[in-house]
C-alpha cells in the first residue's frame, strides 16, 4: 500500500517522455475521486502527448464514474490524434471495462513497455 496522493486526484506520479506521458494512479477511482482525476487528466491531455499512458497497477477499484472519466479524456486525446493506453489492470478493474464493453474500445497493454510503444 503506498501513500495517498495529497491532492485527492489519485495521480501519484507523472513521467513525460518524447513518445508518451505516463500517469501512475493510486487509489480507488470512484465517485469521490473521479472529478479531481478528470481535472488532472484534462490538464495532461492539453499538453498533447503522443500517448497518454495510464498505469492502473495501484488501482484496486474502479466504477462507472471512473470509466466515464476515461471515456471523456479519451475523446480529447483522440481529437488531436493522440493515443490513450492503459496497463496494469487487475482482474477486478478489467472486469469493469468488460461489463461496460469498453475493453475492446480502449487499448489495454500488459506492461509499461508495451504501452509506451503501442
Amino acid at each position, binding site marked *: 500500500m503506498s501513500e495517498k496522493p495529497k491532492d485527492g486526484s489519485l495521480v501519484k506520479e507523472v513521467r513525460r517522455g518524447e513518445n508518451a506521458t505516463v500517469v501512475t494512479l493510486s487509489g480507488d477511482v470512484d465517485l469521490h475521486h473521479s472529478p479531481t482525476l478528470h481535472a488532472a487528466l484534462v490538464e495532461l491531455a492539453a499538453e498533447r502527448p503522443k500517448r497518454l499512458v495510464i498505469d492502473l497497477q495501484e488501482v484496486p477499484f474502479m*466504477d*462507472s464514474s471512473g470509466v466515464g472519466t476515461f*471515456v471523456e479524456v479519451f475523446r480529447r486525446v483522440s481529437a488531436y490524434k493522440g493515443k490513450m493506453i492503459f496497463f496494469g489492470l487487475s482482474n477486478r478493474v478489467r472486469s469493469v471495462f468488460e461489463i*461496460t464493453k469498453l475493453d475492446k474500445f480502449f487499448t489495454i497493454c500488459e506492461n509499461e513497455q508495451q504501452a509506451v510503444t503501442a
Partner: protein
Amino acid sequence: MSQSNPVELKITSSPSCLAAVRGAVEEMARYEGFGEMDSHALVLAVDEALANVIEHGYSGVEGLPIEVTLSAVRSSDHRAGVCVVVRDQGKQVDPGQICGRDLDDIRPGGLGVHIIRSVMDEVEYSCPNEGGMLLRMVKYVSSASAEKPEA
C-alpha cells in the same frame, strides 16, 4: 451467517462514504463463500446503486440519509447469496424508467444501471408510500465458481 442476522449501514449522501460500504459488502460476500470475482461484481453493483442515489435521488446534495441492509440468502438450488436493500429519501422515479442504456454509443454516463443489471441476479426498484426509492437486489455465487473456485 443466517438470514436472521442482517447488517444495516447508515451513511449520508457523500461519495466519501462509499468505501466503507464497499468493504462491508466485500467481506460479507467473502464470508458467505463468494469467490473473488463474484464478490467484486457485488461490490461494484452496490457502489453504482449508491452513486445513483447520490447523483440522481439527491441531485448531488451531501448529508442526506441512505440506508443499506445486507443479508445472507440462498438460491433455490442452495447457492449462497447476498441480498442488498438500498433505501433513500430522494426523488421518486418510475421504476420502469430506470434502465441501462445501449452500449453502442460510447459516452460517459449511463453505465451504472447497465452494470447493476449485468452483475446482479435480481434487481427490483420500487417507490414506497413513505417516499424515496427502495432498491432490492440479490447476487448468488455463480454456478461456475461454485464448482471451480476462482484463483
